[in-house]
């Protein structure tokens, strides 16, 4: 798959949130407006791409040659945690103000189902190093798209008088569902027609 194809596939067609149902937790549960959204997605995208690269390295150099495939989950979990920790240290040194957006540690949020999911998807897809990096970035971009759309919807719902039993999380999930249906307009056939003609 070409790099552009990868980018479009993992950000639109196979959107991490809207197609794979990963990374839902920060999307629907958390407070915070657009600024938090942007910083969370940026952190998540960075984490995803670096973790995907690390996952590729682990798979290629350690797990596959030594026939340790069954240790994939602990290995990836540990690598993601390490990278998250390193990112946090780096952020604290270089951009301390980013670390405390709305009082929530960025890296803690960035480490969710989505990151590990993306690593697994990238490894299962058999991509090479550069492609894995791009997969992570594209997934992060898709995460950003979904998160910002849902945040805007959430802000709009906050001022509305909605049924009390559906207020908050239930409606956010229902909105995500409607959004997911809308995004099904972008499917693989669409991409292949876009690039390959009719």
């Amino acid at each position: 798959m070409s790099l552009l194809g990868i980018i479009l596939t993992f950000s639109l067609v196979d959107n991490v949130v809207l197609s794979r149902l990963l990374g839902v937790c920060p999307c629907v549960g958390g407070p915070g407006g657009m600024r938090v959204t942007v910083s969370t997605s940026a952190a998540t995208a960075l984490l995803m791409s670096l973790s995907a690269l690390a996952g590729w390295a682990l798979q290629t150099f350690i797990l596959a040659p030594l026939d340790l495939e069954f240790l994939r989950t602990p290995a990836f979990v540990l690598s993601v945690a390490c990278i998250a920790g390193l990112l946090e240290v780096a952020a604290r040194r270089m951009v301390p103000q980013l670390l405390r957006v709305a009082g929530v540690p960025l890296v803690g949020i960035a480490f969710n189902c989505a990151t590990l999911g993306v690593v697994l998807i990238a490894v299962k897809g058999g991509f090479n190093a550069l492609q894995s990096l791009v997969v992570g970035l594209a997934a992060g971009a898709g995460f950003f798209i979904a998160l910002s759309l849902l945040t805007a919807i959430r802000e709009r719902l906050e001022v509305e008088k909605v049924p009390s039993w559906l207020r908050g999380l239930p409606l956010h999930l229902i909105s995500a569902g409607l959004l997911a249906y809308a995004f099904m307009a972008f499917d693989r056939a669409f991409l292949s027609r876009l690039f390959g003609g009719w």
Partner: protein
Amino acid sequence: MLVVSPAPHVGGLSSTRRLNWSVACCLLPAAAWGVFLFGVPALSVLGVALGASLAAELLAALAWRRVTLADGSAAVTGLLVGMLMPPGVPLYVPAVASAFAIIIVKQSFGGLGRNWMNPALGGVVFALFSWANAMNSWLPARGVAAGTGVLPPLNALRAALTGAKSAHRGALAVLGASSYPWSAADGRVVAWINTHILSLAGWSLPGGVFDMLVGNIPGRIGDVSVPLLFLGAAYLLGRRVIRWQVPVTYLVTFCVAAQIFGGLPMGCGWGTGGALFQLFSGSLVLGAFFMATDPVTSPLTGTGKLLYGMCLGVLSFFLRYFGSGGDGVPLAIVLGNCVVPVIDRFAQPRVGSPGKAAAG
């Protein structure tokens, strides 16, 4: 004055009622034409869609303890759902689509004015993905023998061009070459015009012009009445029930894109896209004037509306030419709905923190 809560909020209930019932009335001629062309199946589909939406609204009345049928929005939703259905579709499809539209897309969010997705479109998109086969089965036009593989011109065009670039220029020429079954009436009218009027100037119209203009083609119930929809829209625009920004930008963007780039997949080159053919195919006009203009699900500010119209135009272009559904309009508008809260958020001038100000 900054309005923070979404529409409709101007004028209160009476203007909402006026808006909705005007829209419903302007849809009726087009719906009636669809019934005339397709007969009893179309009538039953429309009736079921309308009935289901009214019933669902009544059901919601139990929860809200307030009957809201009089505001007309359920009627409009039901009519729109019906008009977006193919006429031969099994009746449970419009029923479920209408119920989904009212209960899940509208009432779950609090009822009129609080949903962010157009209810009719939400229901239709659900039906599109649930019963894809049923939603893509068509009845033949009046005066055309019922054969197998009936397709609307838009779908037939794509089928004719798949895999092989055509030697002909223009959509109608391609369709004519692949022997698309236009009606006998069309044949007679076009032949008459060609012989008596246009032959003087040396032009000739391809077959199918009459059918496309009049709407005597297979398609959804609301697709086939484009001239009547234009009339209804003109009335609504004239009475300022709907605003011009969204539909005009939408149609202009789409037609420009279609004309310039649309010929490329056909191998005809630039600037030969046949925007007029595209305009009269599919739910473009229905969507542009009656669904994209929904004040609840379109942006608040004028700039926002222009931007929204352009987005819709671009999305419709891509989804119609490259998407999987033949007519990209329902999905395009639904995607546009998803983007509207973002447009609103950035098009709003800042007064304190957006989203937290008291509801207007």
